């Protein structure tokens, strides 16, 4: 198993409502799993627990066969690449340097980066369509470019597991699709495992093998998109009327305007 949660719970200090409550799930090697759910439903907290960044208040989080908290950050970073939700560099960096930081888990404290490392950085930049940005200062990047550079850095880690926490926020259609295509491609070959936290339920449905729907800290549904992403569940979770249509066997949902009914569409 890549990630495993067993009756996992977590509450932030001084907050009564647990952020994650009694979640059990398992993510196997080579899976593409999307975690969806409304704001504050515990998606990011769940991911941070699985990555060992938080200590569970109850239950267990296991990563790559070991207790998540037992990994040293360095050993974990050699195998898991993460694009976290928040990141604020305090000093100006150039894009290439930023991506090079992804090689740090693989080089010793006093060792220099080798030409192999540089080649990995080149390849990662190319994968994320960011080669032309190499010399730019990161402060000058658009939101979408910034996300792609961070994705490139995660790829430079040469991970076997990729975790993206809302990493497609701020991307336009093309670049967002490219990120999903890229991740799906890496899952197919060389067989990476990908966990994506996203608000794009429709893209999750089309690309992910399985979907985890979070609501109020609980995993209210885990399974194939076609089984899980039903109209009643989505309406309950997002507290908004929706209609769900099928596109090539995959559910695609559309939030309705007030007063609209699902019958007002132009057919399937």
């Amino acid at each position, binding site marked *: 198993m890549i990630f495993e949660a067993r009756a996992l719970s977590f509450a932030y200090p001084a907050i009564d409502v647990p952020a994650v409550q009694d979640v059990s799930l398992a993510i196997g090697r080579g899976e593409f799993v999307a975690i969806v759910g409304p704001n504050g439903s515990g998606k990011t907290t769940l991911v941070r627990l699985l990555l060992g960044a938080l200590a569970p208040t109850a239950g267990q989080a296991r990563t790559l066969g070991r207790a998540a908290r037992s990994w040293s*950050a360095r050993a974990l*970073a050699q195998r898991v690449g993460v694009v976290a939700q928040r990141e604020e560099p305090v000093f100006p*960096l*150039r894009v290439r340097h930023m991506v090079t930081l*992804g090689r*740090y888990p693989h080089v010793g404290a006093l060792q220099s980066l080798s030409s192999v490392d540089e080649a990995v950085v080149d390849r990662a930049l190319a994968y994320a369509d960011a080669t032309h940005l190499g010399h730019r200062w990161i402060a000058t990047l658009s939101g979408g470019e910034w996300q792609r550079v961070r994705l490139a850095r995660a790829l430079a880690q040469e991970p076997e597991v990729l975790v993206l926490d809302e990493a497609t926020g701020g991307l336009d259609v093309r670049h967002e699709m490219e990120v999903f295509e890229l991740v799906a491609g890496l899952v197919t070959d060389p067989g990476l495992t990908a966990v994506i936290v996203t608000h794009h339920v429709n893209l999750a449905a089309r690309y992910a093998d399985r979907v985890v729907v979070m609501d109020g800290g609980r995993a209210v549904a885990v399974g194939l998109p076609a089984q899980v992403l039903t109209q009643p569940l989505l309406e309950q979770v997002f507290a908004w009327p929706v209609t769900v249509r099928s596109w090539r066997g995959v559910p695609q949902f559309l939030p309705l305007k007030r007063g609209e009914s699902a019958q007002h569409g132009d057919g399937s």
Partner: protein
Amino acid sequence: MRRWTGLAVLAVAALAIGVLAGPVDLGARDVVSGLMGRGDPVHVVIVRNLRVPRVLLAFAVGGSLAVTGAVLQALVRNPLADPYLLGLSGGAGLGAVLAITLGLAGPWAVPIAAAIGALLAIVTVYRLAVVAGSVLDTRVLLLGGVVVGAFASAVVGAILALSPAESLRNALVWLLGGFDGASWQALGIFLIYAVVPIAVLYRASRPLDLLSLGEEPARFLGADVEPLKRRLYVSASVLTAAAVAVSGIIGFVGLVVPHAIRLVWGHTHRSLLPAAFLLGGALLAGADALARTAFAPLTLPVGVVTAVLGVPVFALLLRRWAT
């Protein structure tokens, strides 16, 4: 490579000027023969026992302050951080001023009192900043440092206001920093305390690069953040406390030098830290030479010289950076 050569030349030049400069006018030839132990015995004593240890101590202290400043800027993720930010200068100042006004005797009374004051301040700030049992909150560290420093300064102010003129002057001179107490012994003691922290900080160069992204991204890129922060804080504190003990409180080196290097070298700590050490050392060795000669036989506090030299240069660099 040219930048390193330039920096090395600057460092050697500062050391040479430091040995050549002084109230007793010695030429290059006198200095060389003094170093070899030949020629006028007075010159030999001046060169070997006074100037060489003094310039080496100034260099080592300046380098250490610059390295500490660079590290703390990344640790607390604030470009304004300098070695004294964490309440250390206040604590050290309080210890030293107490020793001076109480008239404690012996050449080591003031340095030891300063070191004890610095360490007490460090421990207090550290205790304040460790929250929830295990997490070192760098924001609290920053604020705790400011608060502890302000408290110590207030007490120092009270003591100075109530003390006689002579000890007031001694205390003020000490507070502004200087190397009048320099000796081989002082250099040796400083190095004993400095070598391990400098090695620890240099070894943490890559994690420091990561830390300036934020703690969580640093963790996901392989930095064990909590032990790292503690290691950095303790090393930086010990290094600064040792510097304060042998030289008083010398401002600006720890703030200005890292930024000057950042502007030219960028923010990769593997090159930033050694470059900051060389420039900080050169600046302080040169500033001390100027402090000794500008108004000879009177000596200016070296902290005054570093500020007067450092600030305009830094302002120019900032202008260049902005354009």
